[in-house]
């Protein structure tokens, strides 16, 4: 069981998707989906505990040893990210099971296939395999985005699909360059060969720059981020909540490639420009938050804001900064997802006003409280997790060269988010429409699945603040493991990586 644990987070959703395709009955698909997602949460939690012993678990698919076969590599970071994915997926699926899934066909299998792509992308140790999992994730996300229909979704879908297809083409060009210059696509083997002489330095740099650019497209770095807000705000609430983790796939990929391959061999690839662009992303997203006219658009800009803040980390190449960034990643992902779900629940009861920031029927009291907690978390106010995440990030980033600029941008953006949420929150939860219309919608209570899923994610803010110590410690251990590229290479390739040169076939 333990030996096969690394592949299970990929196999469980895949098996669930196959099972769900066998029958079109919604009740059956729901049951299988929720069961599989629950199982995934338990399994990834176990995997996270297992990975905490600091050993690198390498799973060779088909038992072909690296670098010849594809390997899955479980370290603390990968295991923790799959757990975050599983928790988020469970909440999103619970929310979707109250009727959203009936608005189109095949929601459940596609949802599970998206999970296959997400967990696979976190676990794999091979760049071409990463490409394949990216595509699995993206193809499922294209269809999930369109779920529910409507011109807004089709419109957002076309630009999203075209952009990601171009991104995939660039990804393949980068992989071709890497294989052509270094002769391998296994990340550990790449890192090992980069340190050896005898390859074309300029081409390798170019290939890694392209690779990072593709990851940044997925993460939403500024010049490549204009697709993100309208795509995320067009998606249905549970789909957008799951999408909140998709930008993090790009960020984790950048962190990993940077820590394992770039720091030992090409340390100067990112540090000159990444911080500037990340700060520009933060400012851009803060302005977007201020300009948003409805809650889910605001949540989409928040996703971008947290991506910008997180992208400050890779350029610093420091385990301390990454530890803070990982905690920030967990809390900001959950908060953004909660924001999407809350927007969905609030919109349900407000008729035409939906989640737009204007006067309308008042939401229920528990929704007002939930909004208040979430707003405090998102804006980074004490005592919730958002505050702690931002505090850790700011503390760690104080010593770096661009420290003052980072402080200025992050604090200003936090202030702007607070203003936007205070202003719009007043409109959303206090300002009643005059004259009061008869409230027809009040007759149908909010489904318990939606309420539970929303409260689960909103509660993450206070809960993570209570459990901050173990989580922050785990993030610190994950970051220090990430920043030990020697151990990673040795763990994947064996203690003395044999110089398996490009064969004489040249």
């Amino acid at each position: 069981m333990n030996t096969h644990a690394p592949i299970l987070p990929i196999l469980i959703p895949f098996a669930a998707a196959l099972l769900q395709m066998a029958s079109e009955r919604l009740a059956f698909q729901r049951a299988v989906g929720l069961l599989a997602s629950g199982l995934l949460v338990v399994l990834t939690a176990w995997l996270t505990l297992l990975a905490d012993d600091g050993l690198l678990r390498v799973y060779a698919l088909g038992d072909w040893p690296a670098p010849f076969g594809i390997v899955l590599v479980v370290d603390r970071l990968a295991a923790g990210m799959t757990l975050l994915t599983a928790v988020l997926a469970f909440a999103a699926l619970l929310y979707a099971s109250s009727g959203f899934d009936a608005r189109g066909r095949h929601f459940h299998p596609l949802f599970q296939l998206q999970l296959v792509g997400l967990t696979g992308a976190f676990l794999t140790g091979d760049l071409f395999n990463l490409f394949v999992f990216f595509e699995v994730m993206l193809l499922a996300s294209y269809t999930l985005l369109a779920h529910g229909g409507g011109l807004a979704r089709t419109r957002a879908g076309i630009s999203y699909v075209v952009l990601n297809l171009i991104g995939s083409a660039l990804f393949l060009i980068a992989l071709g360059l890497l294989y052509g210059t270094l002769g391998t696509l296994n990340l550990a083997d790449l890192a090992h060969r980069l340190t050896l002489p005898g390859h074309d330095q300029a081409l390798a740099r170019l290939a890694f720059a392209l690779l990072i650019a593709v990851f940044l497209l997925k993460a939403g770095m500024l010049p490549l981020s204009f697709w993100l807000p309208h795509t995320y705000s067009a998606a249905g609430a549970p789909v957008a909540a799951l999408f909140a983790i998709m930008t993090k796939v790009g960020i984790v990929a950048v962190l990993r490639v940077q820590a394992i391959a770039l720091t030992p061999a090409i340390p100067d690839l990112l540090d000159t420009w990444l911080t500037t662009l990340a700060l520009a992303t933060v400012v851009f997203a803060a302005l977007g938050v201020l300009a948003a006219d409805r809650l889910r658009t605001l949540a989409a800009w928040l996703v971008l804001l947290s991506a910008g803040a997180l992208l400050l980390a890779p350029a610093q190449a420091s385990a301390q900064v990454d530890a803070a960034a990982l905690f920030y990643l967990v809390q900001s992902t959950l908060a953004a997802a909660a924001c999407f779900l809350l927007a969905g629940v609030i919109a349900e009861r407000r008729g035409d006003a939906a989640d737009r920031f204007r006067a309308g029927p008042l939401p229920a009291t528990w929704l007002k409280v939930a909004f208040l907690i979430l707003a405090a978390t998102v804006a980074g106010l004490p005592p919730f997790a958002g505050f702690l995440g931002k505090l850790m990030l700011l503390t760690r980033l104080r010593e770096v060269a661009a420290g003052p600029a980072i402080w200025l941008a992050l604090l200003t953006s936090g202030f702007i988010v607070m203003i936007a949420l205070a202003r719009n929150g007043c409109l959303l939860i206090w300002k009643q429409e005059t004259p009061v219309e008869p409230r027809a919608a009040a007759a149908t209570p909010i489904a318990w699945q939606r309420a539970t899923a929303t409260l689960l994610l909103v509660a993450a803010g206070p809960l993570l603040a209570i459990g901050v110590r173990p989580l922050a410690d785990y993030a610190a251990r994950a970051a220090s493991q990430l920043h030990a590229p020697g151990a990673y290479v040795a763990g994947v390739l064996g203690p003395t990586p044999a110089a398996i040169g490009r064969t004489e076939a040249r």
Partner: protein
Amino acid sequence: MEALLATAVGVLTACGVFLILRARTFPVLLGLTLLSYAVNLFLFASGRLRLGAPPLIRAGGSYTDPLPQALVLTAIVIGFGMTAYLAMLALRALSESGGDHVDVAKEP
């Protein structure tokens, strides 16, 4: 051989990029297809070009690197699926909005 392949990749990429920059979905779709052809040829070349050598390791015989061929095959399959999906999405946009402009007209 190298010059021919490089020219093909270059021309395909140029045409692909030109078409992607059009504002209608059909040229964009064709452009993406051309771009994926260019990428596939490029990937193929990453194992170096060898004439008359099979991608099989035999005793004494010369061979060419089989891995890029496997990569290209995977890329073709994935690219094909993606293009098919985009075509369906473009058709749906056409039927919903009555136009094939990439920036589909806003809902009334």
